[in-house]
C-alpha cells in the first residue's frame, strides 16, 4: 500500500519530543491523553484480566480433572464459569483490541493522536472500576453471578444472587467504555487520515477496526437495554422476562443474542486485520485480494445482525424461523472462506520466515479455520439439536477465541513490541511461548469436541464416567496453557527493560506508516501529516 517517508520526518519528531515529553509520576497515567499511554494501559489492564480470568479457568479445569466433586462446590463452580466468560470477553479480549487500536491506528493512518483524547482517557479509566465492581461480587453474600456469561432470565432475575445488581452496573460501565472507544476510533479513522491515505489504502487492521467500531455502537446499547430490563424486573416489579407476569423469557435470549452474535465478531474482526498485516510481512509478498478482504469483512459484519437466533435453535422457534437462521448462518462460511483462501494464497509462493508473530498468525489461520468448520457444523439446525449446549460448543468457541482472538493479540504484541519498546524481544523464548501455547491449547480444547459429541453438557462441575479420560487430558492441557502465559509476561518485561536495539523497521517485509517512525515510537508522532503516495 503506502510507501513511506523521508528520514527528516524522524529527526523532526525526535526534536519535538524534547519539548512535550510525558509528565512524570503516577499522574502521567491518570491524566494522560496520549494515545500511546492509553494504549499501553489498555494492554496491561487486558493482560491482568487475562490472568484473572485464566485463574478461574484453572479452577474449572481442576474441578473437572476427575468426576465427582473435589475442589469447589457446584454453586461456586457456576460463579467461576460465569466470571471466566465475562472477564475474558469484556476484560481481556475487547480491551486488548482497543489497546492495539489506540497504539496503532493513529500511527497507521498518519494521525497525531486519537480524535478525542480526553474521552479516550475516560474510556479507559472506567474499565478498572467496572472490573473491580464485577470481581467484588465474588466476595458478597450469596456470591457473584452464577448464571453463565449469557445470563439467561429468569435464572439471572428471579433466581439470581443479590449481587446481580452490581453485575448489571458493571456491564453498563463496560458498555459505556466500549461505546466511547468505538466513537473515538470511528472519528479518528474518518477524520484524521493523512493526505493521500484514501479509504482503500488503509491497512486492513484499520478497516477491520472501523467495521468493528460500528458493530460496537450498534449492539452495546442493546446489551445495556437487556440488563436494564433485568434491573427493572429485579427491583421495580416489571415482568419483561417473567412468564408469570405476562413477560417472555425467550425475549431475553433474542435481545441478548442480537447483541451477542455481533459481539462474537467484535472479538474476531480486529484479529483478521492483525494477521492480514503480519502474513504479508513475513511472506514478503503483498496481501492477496485486499479489496475482497475489505468486502468480506463488511459482509461478515452485515450477516452478523441476521443470525442471532442460531444460538437458540432449541427454544422452539417456528420452522420458518429455524430455516431462515440456518441458511443465514451457513452463508457466513462464504466470506469467512474467502478470507482464509486469501491468507493461504498470500503465503503461496512467498518467501517466508517464521518469527513469533508469523508462528502465531499461521496457527491462527489453521486453528481458526477448524473453529470455523465446527461453526459450520453447528449451523445445521437439526444437527445442532445434538450439539447445542454440549462441550462441542465449548470446543468450537474456544477454537475461534483462543487461537482466533488471543493468538492474534500475541502475534500483534510480538510484531509491534519493537516499535513500542525500541528493543527486540527474545525470539527463542517467544518461540517456546508459541509452541507451549499451541500444544497446550490444542490439548485442552480438541478433546472437548469428543466429549461434546459423546454427550457431555457444558457448564457442569461433575460428569458421567465415560467422559473422564478426555477431561483429564483437557485439564492437563489447560494447566500447560495457563502456566505458559507467565513466560509471555517475562518476555514482555525483559523486552521493555532491554535487549537488542530495534531499527525503525525491524521486519524485512513489513509495510505501513508505523514503520516510518523511529523505534521506540516518540511520544508524539505525525504532528505534521506524512505524505502518503
Amino acid at each position, binding site marked *: 500500500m503506502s510507501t513511506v517517508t523521508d528520514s527528516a520526518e524522524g529527526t523532526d519528531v525526535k526534536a519535538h519530543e524534547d519539548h512535550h515529553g510525558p509528565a512524570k509520576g503516577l499522574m502521567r497515567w491518570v491524566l494522560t491523553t496520549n494515545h500511546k499511554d492509553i494504549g499501553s494501559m489498555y494492554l496491561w489492564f487486558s493482560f491482568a484480566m487475562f490472568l484473572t480470568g485464566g485463574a478461574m479457568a484453572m479452577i474449572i479445569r481442576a474441578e473437572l480433572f476427575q*468426576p*465427582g*466433586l473435589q475442589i469447589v462446590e*457446584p454453586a461456586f463452580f*457456576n460463579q467461576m464459569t460465569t466470571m471466566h466468560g465475562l472477564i475474558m470477553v469484556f476484560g481481556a479480549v475487547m480491551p486488548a483490541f482497543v489497546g492495539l487500536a489506540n497504539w496503532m491506528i493513529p500511527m497507521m493512518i498518519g494521525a497525531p493522536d486519537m480524535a478525542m483524547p480526553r474521552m479516550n482517557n475516560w474510556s479507559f479509566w472506567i474499565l478498572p472500576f467496572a472490573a473491580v465492581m464485577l470481581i467484588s461480587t465474588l466476595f458478597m*453474600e*450469596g456470591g457473584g453471578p452464577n448464571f*453463565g456469561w449469557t445470563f*439467561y432470565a*429468569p*435464572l439471572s432475575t*428471579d*433466581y439470581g444472587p443479590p449481587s446481580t445488581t452490581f453485575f448489571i452496573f458493571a456491564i453498563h460501565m463496560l458498555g459505556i467504555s466500549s461505546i466511547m472507544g468505538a466513537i473515538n476510533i470511528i472519528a479518528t479513522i474518518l477524520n484524521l487520515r493523512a493526505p493521500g491515505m484514501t479509504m482503500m489504502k488503509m491497512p486492513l487492521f484499520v478497516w477491520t477496526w472501523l467495521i468493528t467500531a460500528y458493530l460496537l455502537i450498534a449492539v452495546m446499547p442493546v446489551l445495556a437495554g437487556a440488563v436494564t430490563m433485568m434491573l427493572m424486573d429485579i427491583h421495580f416489579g416489571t415482568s419483561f422476562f417473567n*412468564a408469570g407476569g405476562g413477560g*417472555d*423469557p425467550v425475549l431475553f435470549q433474542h435481545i441478548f443474542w442480537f447483541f451477542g452474535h455481533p459481539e462474537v465478531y467484535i472479538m474476531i474482526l480486529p484479529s483478521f486485520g492483525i494477521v492480514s498485516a503480519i502474513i504479508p510481512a513475513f511472506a*514478503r*509478498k*503483498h*496481501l492477496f*485480494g485486499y479489496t475482497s478482504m475489505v468486502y468480506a469483512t463488511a459482509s461478515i459484519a452485515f450477516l452478523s445482525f441476521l443470525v442471532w437466533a442460531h444460538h437458540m435453535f432449541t427454544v*422452539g422457534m417456528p*420452522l420458518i424461523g*429455524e430455516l431462515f437462521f*440456518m*441458511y443465514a448462518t451457513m452463508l457466513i462460511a*462464504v466470506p469467512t472462506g*474467502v478470507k*482464509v483462501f486469501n491468507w*493461504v*494464497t*498470500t*503465503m*503461496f*509462493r*512467498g518467501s*517466508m*520466515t517464521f518469527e513469533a508473530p508469523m508462528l502465531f498468525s499461521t496457527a491462527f489461520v489453521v486453528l481458526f*479455520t*477448524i473453529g470455523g468448520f465446527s461453526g*459450520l*457444523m453447528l449451523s445445521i*439446525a*437439526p*444437527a445442532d*439439536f*445434538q450439539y*447445542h*449446549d454440549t462441550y462441542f460448543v465449548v470446543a468450537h468457541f474456544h477454537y475461534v477465541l483462543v487461537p482466533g482472538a488471543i493468538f492474534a493479540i500475541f502475534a500483534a504484541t510480538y510484531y509491534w513490541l519493537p516499535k513500542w519498546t525500541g528493543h527486540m524481544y527474545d525470539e527463542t523464548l517467544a518461540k517456546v511461548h508459541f509452541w507451549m501455547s499451541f500444544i497446550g491449547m490444542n490439548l485442552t480444547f480438541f478433546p472437548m469436541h*469428543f466429549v461434546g459429541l*459423546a*454427550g457431555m*453438557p457444558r*457448564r*457442569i462441575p*461433575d460428569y*458421567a*464416567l465415560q467422559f*473422564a479420560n478426555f477431561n483429564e487430558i483437557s485439564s492437563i492441557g489447560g494447566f500447560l496453557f495457563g502456566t505458559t502465559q507467565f513466560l509471555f509476561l517475562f518476555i514482555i518485561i525483559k523486552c521493555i527493560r532491554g535487549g537488542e536495539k530495534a531499527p525503525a523497521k525491524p521486519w524485512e*517485509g513489513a509495510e505501513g506508516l508505523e514503520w516510518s517512525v523511529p523505534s521506540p515510537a516518540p511520544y508524539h508522532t505525525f504532528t505534521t501529516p506524512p505524505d502518503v503516495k
Partner: protein
Amino acid sequence: MQQAKFLSLLAGLAVTGGSRAAWEVNMTEGVTAVSRNIYGLHMTIMTICAVIGLVVFGVMFYSIFKHRKSKGAVPQQFHESTLVEIVWTSIPFLILVLMAIPATKTLVDIYNTDEAEVDIKITGYQWKWQYEYLGEGVSFFSNLSTPTEQIQNVRNKNPNYLLEVDEPLVLPVGKKVRFLVTAADVIHSWWVPALAIKRDAIPGFINEAWTNIDVPGTYRGQCAELCGKNHAYMPIVVEAKSEEEFEQWLQDKKEQASRERELTDKVWSMDELMARGEQVYNKVCAVCHQPNGAGMPPIFPALKGSPMATEANQVGAHVDIVMNGKKGSAMQSFAGQLSEVDIAAVITYERNAWGNNTGEMVTPKEIVEYKKTGVYEEDPARQTMPDNQQASL
C-alpha cells in the same frame, strides 16, 4: 491405571456406535429414524469440512515447507485476481446449497408432531423432571438416584454415575410419542442423545417434540441448559419397552397411584410421619436446605432453628410456604408435586428434626383441609394421639 485405559481404548474401538466407552469420540447414531438422519447430516458435513480442510491446509503446508526464505524462495508479485475470488466464493456457496437440502428435509420431519399416539407432558424443575402421561392419570417425578457419597468421592462410583434416576420415563417402542415440554421455574432443556431430542423447557411456554423408538432399551441423557446449582444433577433416563410391557407398566402405575391416595385417610403417628418425612426431605428439600437443615444462606435459608420451623404460631406460614412456594425465590410450590401425606410428613419432620423439637405434627388430613379452604387449622382430633411426647429426636 494406564493399562486399564489402554484396555478401555481397545474396547472402545471394538464396540460400535452407541457404546458408552470411555474413549467415545463421536455422536451416537441413536435409535430413531430422526436420530439416524441427524447422524447422517453430522457425518456428511464433517466429511465436507475435512475434505476442504485437507485441500486448504495441504496448499498451506506445501507453501510453508517449500516457499521459505531459508530455501531460497523468491517472493512472487501477484496479489489480485477477480476470477479466483469469484471461483472461491461460488464453490463454497454451491456446497452449502447442497448441504441445506437434506438439512431442511430433516428439520421439516422433526417439526411434524401430528398423529401422536402417546402424549407426555415433561416439566423441568430445579432439579428434577416431572412426567405426566396425559389422559392416563399417571404422573411422577424423576430424581437423580446417585448417592451423595459417590459425588463426594467417599464411595466408588456406579457405572451409570449421574445418569441414573429413581423413576425412569417409560415409553413404548414403535409408537409415535409426543412430548409437551415446559418448566416450572427456570429454563431447562430435555435432552436424550439416543433420541436426538433436545428441547428447551421454558416457563410459560409449551414446546413440542416427538419420537418413535425402534429398539427397546435404556437411554440416558441430561439437562442441557444451565438451571442453577444442581444443573449437573438432573439426568433423564428413558426406558423403551415393547407395547405389551408398556401397557402393563401403565396399569401398575395407575394401581400404585390409587393406593397412594388411600394413605391420606389413614391415621398417622408421629414416628410414621417422621420416618416418611425424612425420606421426602432428603429426596426433595435437602438439595437446597441441606441434609442437616443448615441451608446455604442467603440464597437457601436454614430451617434448623429458623422461626418459621420452630415457633408454634408459624405452623400456618410453614404450611403455606411449602404448599405455595415463595415468589421470586427458588422455593417452589409443592402443592402439585407432593401428595398430602408427603407434605404433612415433611413439615412434621422439619419442625422436629435437627433440634427443632417443637413436638408439633401436621397431619395429611389437615393438608387436605388446607387445600380446600386455603387456611391452615389444627385438626382437634390429633391432640389425642398417643406418641406426641416422644417427638424430640
